[in-house]
């Protein structure tokens, strides 16, 4: 590939081939390094960061999960004692671990499904809308996506506020008979949404879906724009139904995009922290912990139990790795690395 352009140039300028022979040495002289070293030199800072801030701490975390690390050890007054699998057995015996695990998995499953369905629907809608309208909607949904997670939590905590929140006002608007039929009650004033694990997660799901469907929608839109229109024309000429067209053309072509979006959503939703932290006002309600919050609370709320916290973090990481191994394998397979 690259040779063709050089030869074309060489044809125009007789002296070019001679110069070209010199060119490999020129950069070497300029930087004073043999050429094969250059990529490694360029990689050094990045590798140092990855090794020092990600890989080594990962190793340390595994070690800590087998140790007892409390205040004396944090302050360096006592060396950390090796306790074997103690931290793990303690964690597995703890009810809060099992409720955290359930919260993490159920929340991720529900949120990923809702985000993908809503995001895909909106992406398809954007593809059908006129240019002006679609730009307006894209700017709108992007501003929701852009809101920082902490501010997302603040906004939805305010919307679901017991006394002055908008949601209770909306629910009060429903005709009494309908409200009683659906929810068994008519008066919503003062309904505290954020006291109970179940309703905290209801609010959290709405909050996270609201903030993350835009990314799915815009990605699906980009994917749809990339499908050649001739395919659809051909399908129409052949009398294909819309559903059949979707199943036979749109879906297969967008499949790689969907699988990436699914995995990214799983990764993001498995470890949601900031929004949950705001909605339940710090690690207060133990029934509403997810694994991230549980690990955080064990390690950093007094008395700090870093060993147990690390054991929970190891379990969370293993769970994520199992899920994402599929993704890594797929990328490595399709990649022309």
């Amino acid at each position: 590939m690259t040779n063709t352009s050089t030869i074309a140039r060489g044809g125009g300028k007789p002296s070019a081939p001679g110069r070209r022979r010199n060119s490999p040495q020129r950069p070497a002289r300029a930087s004073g390094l043999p050429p094969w070293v250059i990529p490694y030199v360029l990689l050094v800072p990045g590798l140092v960061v990855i090794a020092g801030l990600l890989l080594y701490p990962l190793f340390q975390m595994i070690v800590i999960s087998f140790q007892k690390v409390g205040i004396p050890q944090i302050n360096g007054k006592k060396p950390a004692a090796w306790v074997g699998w103690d931290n793990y057995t303690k964690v597995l015996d703890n009810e809060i671990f099992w409720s955290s695990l359930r919260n993490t998995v159920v929340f991720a499953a529900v949120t990923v499904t809702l985000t993908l369905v809503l995001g895909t629907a909106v992406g398809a809608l954007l593809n059908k809308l006129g240019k002006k309208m679609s730009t307006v909607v894209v700017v709108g949904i992007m501003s929701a996506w852009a809101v920082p997670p902490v501010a997302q939590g603040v906004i939805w905590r305010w919307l679901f506020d017991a006394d002055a929140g908008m949601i209770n006002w909306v629910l009060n608007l429903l005709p009494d008979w309908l409200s009683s039929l659906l929810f068994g009650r008519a008066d919503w004033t003062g309904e505290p949404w954020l006291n109970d694990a179940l309703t905290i997660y209801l609010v959290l799901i709405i909050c996270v879906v609201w903030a993350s469907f835009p990314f799915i929608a815009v990605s699906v839109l980009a994917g749809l724009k990339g499908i050649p229109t001739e395919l659809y024309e051909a399908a129409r000429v052949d009398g294909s139904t819309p559903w059949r067209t979707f199943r036979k053309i749109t879906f297969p072509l967008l499949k790689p995009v969907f699988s990436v979006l699914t995995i990214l959503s799983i990764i993001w939703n498995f470890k949601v922290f900031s929004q949950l932290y705001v909605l339940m006002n710090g690690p207060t309600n133990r029934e509403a912990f997810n694994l991230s919050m549980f690990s955080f609370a064990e390690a950093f709320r007094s008395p700090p139990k870093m060993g147990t916290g690390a054991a929970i973090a190891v379990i969370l990481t293993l769970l994520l790795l199992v899920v994402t191994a599929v993704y890594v394998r797929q990328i490595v397979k399709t990649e022309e690395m």
Partner: protein
Amino acid sequence: MTPIARKRLGKVALNAAGVLVFIFAVFPVYWMVSTSFKTNDQIFTTEFIPFPTELTLDHLHRVLTEGVAGNSIWLYMRNSAIVALGTVVIGAVFALLAATAIARFAFKGRSSFLVLLLIVQMIPAEALLIPLFLNVKRLGLYDQLLGLIVINVGLTLPFGIWMLRTFVAAVPKSLEEAAWIDGASRFTTFRKVLFPLVAPGLVATSIFSFITAWNELIFALILMSDSSGYTMPVALQFFFGQRGTDWGAIMAGSTMMTIPVVVFFLLVQRRMVTGLVAGAVKG
């Protein structure tokens, strides 16, 4: 119904759906901004007031002068800006070097490095919390913004390299070769040819890192014990007081925190989606 009428009706339905999506996305943001300009009478009411009839700058004034947790909100904005900009500057240089190596050189270990980049992105930040906390304490970086900067570089760099390399790879190699042939050194080629063409991608990557560092809550919570070192996400938590919440003030604070991110987002929106999806799909 005639086909034309049906088509028109379909179009109306589509646009109506578009309007609904727009309202669902934008209303909560609007509600945050409008609450920060409402008077307390109009905030703490069981009535619904879609458009405030009285606007006030009281809340904004209060968070700027009284602030929260003992400091003006400016200090927290400044801390957040220092952390985010520090992360971007260091991260951009490192990412550009590594991305150039991957996209421009064939070397031994290149594909292993790419796989490594993918795998480290799967490590949840929460998993590194405990060891990094202990390391930062040991290194004497506890309670210092520099400690947060270093950690944010670690959190954002793998993705930064991953995203940037697609932009470097998109610059035709023949351009650089032309420069070499004309006698430019490798460095001059980099500065005059590659850099200007990669600059837009570098901006997009930098903004992504900026936003990540700006929004980061969990490390800022554990690495800063003194309130003068809080970043915005931490400071906002302190508005939720024991005696009830000052919703006007917290909305003013949240709005201040959100505005820079939204502006950046809209600036690089298209490139960022391309980068995210391309980075993930095609690699």
